[in-house]
């Protein structure tokens, strides 16, 4: 065998070896975000995005623009489907594996047609209300699969796409009376109003207003209900970090029961609390702590239907939602779907869509865009109703851990929902 022939055979052998090693790495590599269903190059790729309710109108509108914009990944056209779901409800669905994630030992390349069909509806990405919901979902899957399913660093890490916070929204006629009676509007003055036996006449309001009615989202339908209870706990204890001991303290629970006793109707409340607030007006609620973006979106509706504008007040202990765009990294979705999701994420973070978010009362995640950047920004439109462009973050409530969340939900189920 001459030298040229030897070199030729060696090169061929090395090439074969590289190919084999690459295949083995792909097959057994485990956690890489690029792993996934091996699919033939499709004509189009569809991605399903589970989207938190407060940002769903904006994301759906952005998805329409995106779908009409002929966006591609590696030359393949992308179609975005938005699925609206409350963050806490989605967490429950992840927890119970209702979307059908494969077991840890499943081979994604050897699925039956039925298994592949079941994965057609698997979400490619999730935009929950807050980062802590992603952490709780990861914790659940770590126990089940031994790995994270949403990455917190690297290319596929969760990125906030918009920001909002919880603020008091109170009908102007009622807010004036409360301010005269208590000065500041906070959980303490709201609690004092809630326990006033004589109702509004005793507080200085009109007899026809009945008793003071608090608006709190139903935690079974809207993660904002949980946020409100944690915010109330923060103010009750005067700190931002709340523990299980805090929320199981009988004195705190009694105080919280009195607050919840001022809620008119949890049973008929929909997942869209601020919409209900506007639709039924002061007849069902005088005010409550709700997401600023939801309040701003409904300001005009409140005014048109009830002729009594809402006023916005910011609490001492602020709960922020950052709406992280989180790509599922497991093998249930293909690499091309994951890359398509990243394309949509980039689109949402572009200046045009960040500006569009202002019309939905959302604060931009991009520092390139100011809250008053556009004429149709709700922060501009409702400036006179108390909307602040800059809110100090020094007293931001810390995210609850799983045990605090479960304790509060159980307390609610046993003491309020039953």
């Amino acid at each position, binding site marked *: 065998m001459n030298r040229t022939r030897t070199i030729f055979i060696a090169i061929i052998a090395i090439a074969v070896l590289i190919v084999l090693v690459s295949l083995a790495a792909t097959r057994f590599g485990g956690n890489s975000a690029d792993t996934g269903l091996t699919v033939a190059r499709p004509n189009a790729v569809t991605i399903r995005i589970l989207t938190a309710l407060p940002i769903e109108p904006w994301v759906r509108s952005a998805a329409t623009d995106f779908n009409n914009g002929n966006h591609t990944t590696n030359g393949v056209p992308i179609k975005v489907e938005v699925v609206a779901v409350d963050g*806490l*409800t*989605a*967490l*429950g*669905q992840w*927890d*119970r594996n*209702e979307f059908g994630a494969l077991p840890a030992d499943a081979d994604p390349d050897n699925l039956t047609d039925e298994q592949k069909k079941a994965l057609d509806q698997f979400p490619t990405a999730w935009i929950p209300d807050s980062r802590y919901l992603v952490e*709780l979902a990861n914790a659940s899957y770590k126990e089940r699969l031994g790995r994270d399913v949403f990455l917190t660093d690297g290319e596929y890490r969760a990125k906030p796409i918009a920001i909002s916070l919880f603020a008091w929204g109170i009908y102007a006629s009622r807010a004036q009376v409360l301010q005269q009676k208590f000065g500041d509007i906070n959980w303490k003055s709201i609690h004092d109003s809630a326990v006033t036996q004589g*109702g509004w006449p005793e507080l200085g309001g*009109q*007899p*026809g*207003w*009945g*008793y003071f*009615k608090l608006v709190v989202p139903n*935690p*079974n339908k809207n993660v904002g209900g949980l946020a409100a209870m944690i915010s109330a706990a923060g103010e009750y204890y005067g700190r931002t970090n709340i523990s299980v001991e805090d929320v199981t303290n009988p004195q705190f629970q009694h105080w919280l029961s009195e607050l919840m*006793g*001022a*809620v*008119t*109707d*949890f*049973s*008929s*409340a*929909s*997942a869209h609390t601020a919409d209900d607030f*506007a*639709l*039924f007006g*002061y*007849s*069902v609620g005088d005010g409550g702590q709700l997401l600023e973006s939801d309040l701003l979106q*409904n300001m*005009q*509706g*409140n005014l*048109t*239907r*009830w*002729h009594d504008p809402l006023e916005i007040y910011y609490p001492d202990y602020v709960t922020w939602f950052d709406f992280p765009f989180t790509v599922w990294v497991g093998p249930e979705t293909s690499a091309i779907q994951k890359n398509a999701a990243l394309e949509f994420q980039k689109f949402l973070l572009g200046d045009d869509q960040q500006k569009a978010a202002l019309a939905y009362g959302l604060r931009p995640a991009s520092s390139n865009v100011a809250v008053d950047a556009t004429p149709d920004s709700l922060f501009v439109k409702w400036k006179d109703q108390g909307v602040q462009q800059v809110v100090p973050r020094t007293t931001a409530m810390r995210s609850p851990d*799983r045990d605090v*969340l*479960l304790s509060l*939900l*159980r307390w609610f*189920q046993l003491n*309020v*929902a*039953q």
Partner: protein
Amino acid sequence: MSRYRRMNSHDENRHRNRAIWIAGIVIVLAIVICSSSVISGGMWIAGLFGGNDKQADTAAPSWAPDSAELTVAASPLMAPVLQQMASSFNSLDLRTPDNKKMTAWVVSVVPEKMVEDSLGLPNYQAISPDSSLWLDQLEQEWAKRQQSDSSSETQIPIGQRRISGQTRYAVSPIVIAAWEPVARSLGWPDHPIGWQEIQDKATKDATFKWNHSATNNASGLLATLAEFYAGANLTRGLTVDAATSKKTLDYVQAVESTIKFYGEGEEVITQHLQEQGENFLDAFTAQERTVIDWNTRNPKRPLVAIYPSEGTLWTDHPLALLELGSQPHELAVTDNQRLTYRAFADFLTSPDAQKQFLSLGFRPADLSLQLDGTGSPFAGSTYVDSRQPQTTLQMPSPSVIDVVRNVWYYTKRPTNVYLVVDTSGSMEGTKIARAREALTAFVKQIQGDRDKLGLVEFASGTKTFFALARDG
């Protein structure tokens, strides 16, 4: 000739053979058909009397895997409106991606029955009760059933839902509808009028005729809830203990005994008003929309909407998709039906449909529509007030709602019932089986511990006697 005869004979044989074959095939087919008929007929009869699983199979509603037909159960008051809307929707000839025509059908079902049906095997895929409180009742009951399957205490106990995709398209507060002279005699429009005034009037003035509908719909439920609140002397925080205290129940019983025409929905009441006028009733509870509708059709005999000063309740007419498919014999809602649901919900919340709801006297979900704008039935009316209601009664917990729904049971006198059953030879077979079913159904209706049951079994003479005892 012989050749010809041979040929003829050969043909005859061939024809005979063919005839025999044909006859054989016919006989075999006949036997097969007859056997099938006998077997299926026998199975049908057996299923009719046997109540076996096969019967459950055939009883379960079914639809094609690619069906785009959506059936919606709507409350009796809303059903005619939604039927019209569905007709307009169907005429749009909307298509699914696989070119199936999207079609919506609307059937009228009492809200309480909707809840019962939806826990079983409903023959519809979406519901639109008069209030979300029925959805909550459904979810609570569904969650109870699911919890028995839930193993982990560390799981987030949220998201197990029998319904999804909830949409509101129109709302209407519940009011006390009264003839204008009656309303004025009660103090309208100068003084606030509450449930208490109506109940006092009814208990003190024997000539005052008022009515509320049954508790299987929202307006009847609210009127009864208001009686419980008044009886317990509360406006919020009503508990089961307070609702079932003797003082409260005595009060509710006294008020309920003044009801002149009990058990029908407000659509039936307005029909009687049309026929009998002021002689029929002085006042009744109804959706505000009913008052507007009446006044549009009867401008010379107007009704006044009284917004009770203690507070009222809203009918909010949610449209909700049922999440079917998790029970044995139950088909899941198809992808195409989901598309039809979405399209129908979008249609109901479209600007044109929302304006139509407003013209019919509902308050549309679209908040950009002004209730007092030009052409609105609220504009310029002295009989309804779009700034009302000012406050609502607090909706108590589902356990208190159960008490209110069962007001008849709580306020009626305790009952002693003897069941007398013939178990003689003439009852053998299906008769005794059916009698057993009927008795079981009856016993299930005897709730709690206030009623007593006894049993007498007889043939030619008394065979068994069980003395009165509480249902155990």
